[in-house]
């Protein structure tokens, strides 16, 4: 029976609307008390100046394991998650083979246990081999630990399949994570369609390719009363449609990435593939709508949409380079820069988007500092200034557009199940004797 007292930090718990200076007592790997704690503990940790929040939860992360270990492994990806302040991540099924069977889901969980970093909750495939043709064995996947279902970045082309998936997952109470994109409108595209794609001669991906699919998915969610989560939305019209659907009682949620809040399509002028992401970086008017959607609650959550790639894949011509950003390790400072510093969100709101809401979407008893629950806790130093250097990433993916940015806010300490897994820039599992 060990205990740890985290003293004098700024406790932020959106589940209780709590934002105050106080203490957090952990006993027996669980949160025992919050507020003014008078008990003594085996160990005391002074958290003055730090934010003490429920562990952050990322809704969709690609771990590339098995299949593309040169890009990422479960070990490197979960270490990156810790460094980014995440105690839990939901992993995409776009591995090779895909997570479309119970065994594959169990393997993802096993790999995470071997790594000993953070919790990994698999998202199972909606369709076999992510082909969009036949439903995967969703019931088996649930038994294997899948918390939601998605075909990752392969949009589900058939409305019929999408309808059945939303209906079928209802009986398990699990959401369908949809990546909204009409493929035929974006084929061979590399960036947002607009002025800059015209200027640069780069093939465009119109905003409508996303919003048309958002409209269809929302209509099907309404029809089936299934649970829909729209991943990484990026357009004004998506925000408008989701807002209307939520008002009408549709069971839909959505998330946005930090980079879509920070960078616009003019960055492609550099022809640097670090800016090639899917959905593409949009124009400033879309960014404004996304921020508005976060403020009024239309957008529930923020996810890194972590897409790690090895240098040799990413450092290529724009047509050849894959889409994506290695995002886990820069979420906190980029959110501070684009949301906290301009005054768009309070810390309470930001932690809600990064922890409490994702837990609710995934159906996890997490995202809160309520006593009695496992102590997944993230301590953030909001004032720490540092320069982003991908060479120091734990992720194998060094593909970030934020290289060289001087930012504020850094993960200080991460506890998973009451155990310190990350502190002072070091992932504990790496220093453990093998």
């Amino acid at each position, binding site marked *: 029976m060990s205990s740890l007292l985290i003293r004098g930090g700024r406790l932020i718990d959106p589940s209780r609307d709590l934002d105050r200076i106080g203490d957090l007592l952990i006993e027996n790997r669980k949160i025992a008390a919050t507020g003014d704690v008078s008990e003594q503990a085996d160990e005391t940790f002074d958290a003055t100046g730090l934010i003490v929040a429920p562990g952050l939860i990322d809704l969709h992360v690609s771990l590339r394991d098995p299949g593309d270990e040169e890009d990422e492994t479960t070990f490197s990806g979960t270490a990156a998650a810790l460094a980014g302040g995440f105690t839990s991540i939901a992993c995409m099924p776009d591995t090779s083979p895909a997570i479309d069977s119970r065994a594959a889901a169990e393997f993802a969980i096993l790999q995470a246990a071997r790594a000993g970093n953070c919790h990994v909750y698999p998202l199972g495939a909606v369709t076999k081999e992510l082909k969009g043709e036949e439903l995967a064995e969703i019931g088996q996947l649930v038994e294997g630990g899948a918390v939601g279902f998605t075909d990752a970045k392969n949009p589900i082309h058939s409305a019929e399949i999408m309808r059945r998936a939303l209906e079928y997952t209802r009986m398990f109470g699990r959401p369908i994570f949809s990546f909204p994109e009409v493929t035929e409108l974006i*084929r*061979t595209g590399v960036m947002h369609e*607009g*002025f800059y*794609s*015209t*200027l*640069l*001669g*780069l*093939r465009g991906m119109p905003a409508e390719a996303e919003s048309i699919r958002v409209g269809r998915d929302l209509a099907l969610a309404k029809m089936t009363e299934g649970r829909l989560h729209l991943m990484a939305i990026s357009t004004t019209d998506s925000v408008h449609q989701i807002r209307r659907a939520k008002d009408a009682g549709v069971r839909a949620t959505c998330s946005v990435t930090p980079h879509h809040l920070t960078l616009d399509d003019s960055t492609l002028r*550099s*022809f640097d593939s670090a800016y090639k992401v899917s959905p593409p970086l949009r124009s400033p008017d879309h960014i404004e709508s996304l921020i508005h959607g976060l403020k009024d609650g239309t957008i529930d959550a923020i996810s890194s949409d972590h897409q790690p790639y090895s240098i*040799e894949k990413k*450092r*290529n*011509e*724009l*047509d*050849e380079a894959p889409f994506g950003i290695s995002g886990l390790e820069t979420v906190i400072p980029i959110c501070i820069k684009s949301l906290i510093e301009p005054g768009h969100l309070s810390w309470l709101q930001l932690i809600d988007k990064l922890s409490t809401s994702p837990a609710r979407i995934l159906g996890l008893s997490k995202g809160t500092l309520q006593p009695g629950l496992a102590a997944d806790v993230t301590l953030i130093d909001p004032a720490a200034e540092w320069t982003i250097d991908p060479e120091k990433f734990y992720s194998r993916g060094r593909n970030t557009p934020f290289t060289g940015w001087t930012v504020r806010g850094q993960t200080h300490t991460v506890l998973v199940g009451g155990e310190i897994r990350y502190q002072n820039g070091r992932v504990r599992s790496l220093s453990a004797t093998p």
Partner: protein
Amino acid sequence: MGVLMTTETSIATKWNRKHILGLEELSAEEITLILDHATKFKQRTERGELKFDDLRGKVIANLFFEPSTRTRTSFGLAAKRLSADTVDFSPTGSSVSKGETFIDTAKNIEAMGVDQVVVRHSTPGAPHLLAKHLKAGVLNAGDGTHEHPTQALLDIMTIRERKGTIAGLTVTLVGDIRHSRVARSNIWGLTKLGARVIVCGPSTLIPREITRLGVEVSYDLDAVLPETDCVNLLRVQFERQRSAFFPSIREYAHLFGLNNERARKGKEGMLILAPGPINRGVELTTEVADGPHSVILDQVTNGLLVRMACLSLLNSYQERTGEGRA
């Protein structure tokens, strides 16, 4: 070294760039400098000088990752006229399929002691990527649907030769504006030198945002020809289109093909340019292509001179600054 005339020396010392990646980043003065330098080469060539010493001992690599006959030949000859040694690399299929990346391929060739790299590629920005990773000077010979600076320079040189100036002229670019690197480079070059530019073609092939580059848009060729001093008929880029942008070639030729009857609607002495390779009977009829106002073959001649000028200027920059070879 050959005997350089003083005017040429002064042209060369005014040039301050290591790479030519597009006309967007060049000033009107820099564009004029290239044209003047090319004109000097033309005058000397016409006096019977065929070989120049500018690039003796230098190595030019022609990297053509996309098929090309005309531009590759023109660059190859330009380098030879300047006494450079040349290395040609045009992968059949894709070297990427052998596992080597674009940058590695280029670095390998550079390691043979290359001073300048002429690159054509189907992806916009590929020359910019090389400029970032190589020590050699980089000359863009066409990057996807982005820019084709030497083509625009030769178009502008041809117009300037015939019309004396660019400022105040109305130039109409006809055809597939969306997929045309020639259009983009022409728009930058012509507007910087003070021309009025109209882009004309099927509405599916003219991006709406193009007006922000300072051009006017028309979908009616017959309506704009009476105001047009020079018409440039762009090739329909069937190979770059994601899907069908117009119903048939017949309909395209009907609406936008230049035949004699249409050509007569142009301003007195309207010049007819086409970057080629032309699809006879589509963008223009044979009678127009071979007619008195066509300057298509002048364009080809000037292409060689413009490329000589570019290679020579980039070389003068390297010699002056010592930047360049690995």
